[in-house]
């Protein structure tokens, strides 16, 4: 799970998004910037493993959530612009025949008192587990 999130974090950072955090980093919100991005996994589904003499391949599908947080007083248009400038290029770079943006929702988080723009990204991949003997 962590390696999937790290790949998304790396992609987001490569497009100039400095404030990227993983969903379970347990850092207090006040230490994060005005606008920040959180990457988490909403769902994960593995299919039957594929075997080779030395490696077991586990294909999976997952939905990764990329949430952009902004102060609640910020206009929605600014949050959309921030998303388009810092998050969208990374998402476009990862998109392909097996991964794509599947939803985009805006909501108000009353606990954190923030506006949140959440992008759901449907992704597939393969988990590799090395094994000593066939």
């Amino acid at each position, binding site marked *: 799970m962590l*390696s999937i999130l790290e790949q998304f974090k790396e992609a987001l950072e490569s497009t100039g998004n400095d404030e990227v955090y993983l969903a379970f980093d347990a850092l207090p919100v006040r230490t994060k910037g005005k606008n920040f991005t959180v990457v988490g996994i909403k769902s994960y589904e593995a299919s039957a493993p594929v075997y080779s003499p030395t490696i077991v391949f586990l294909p*999976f599908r997952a939905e990764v959530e990329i949430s952009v947080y902004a102060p609640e007083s910020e206009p929605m248009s600014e949050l959309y612009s921030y998303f388009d400038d810092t998050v969208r290029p990374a998402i476009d770079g990862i998109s*392909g025949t*097996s*991964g794509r943006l599947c939803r985009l929702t805006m909501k108000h988080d009353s606990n954190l008192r923030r506006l949140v723009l959440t992008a759901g990204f449907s992704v597939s*991949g393969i988990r590799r587990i090395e094994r000593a003997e066939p």
Partner: protein
Amino acid sequence: MSEICKREAVPVAIGQLTLYCESFRASGSTVLYEQPTVTGSTVVTNKCVRSSKLVLTGRICAGDAALTVLTVLNNMNGTPGIDIVYRGVRFAGCTVQGYTAEDRGDDMLYVTLTLAATAPAEDVEEVDAQ
């Protein structure tokens, strides 16, 4: 270690048309000619390797301009001697056996092209190295 897939559609040049393939299927078969023996068992007297069937599927997104592809596809139908390379594998001397081009009303043309390949597939890197 989990790795996410980042594959893009694969460009395949088919004559003057380049189709960005999102799906590719190759199938082959051999026909066995069987005869009964006097004891009632079966013996294979001959065999015939059928041509491989290659089905390439992709979408063309260019609004009304995509429909000009229809003319190209229509003219290509039945054309022999086409070489295609899909992800480093070359299929030489293919014949265009059929196509479908579907306009579903969303400014995209959904294209399926069926080719018949009689020559064996070749690894492009291996052939070029020789």
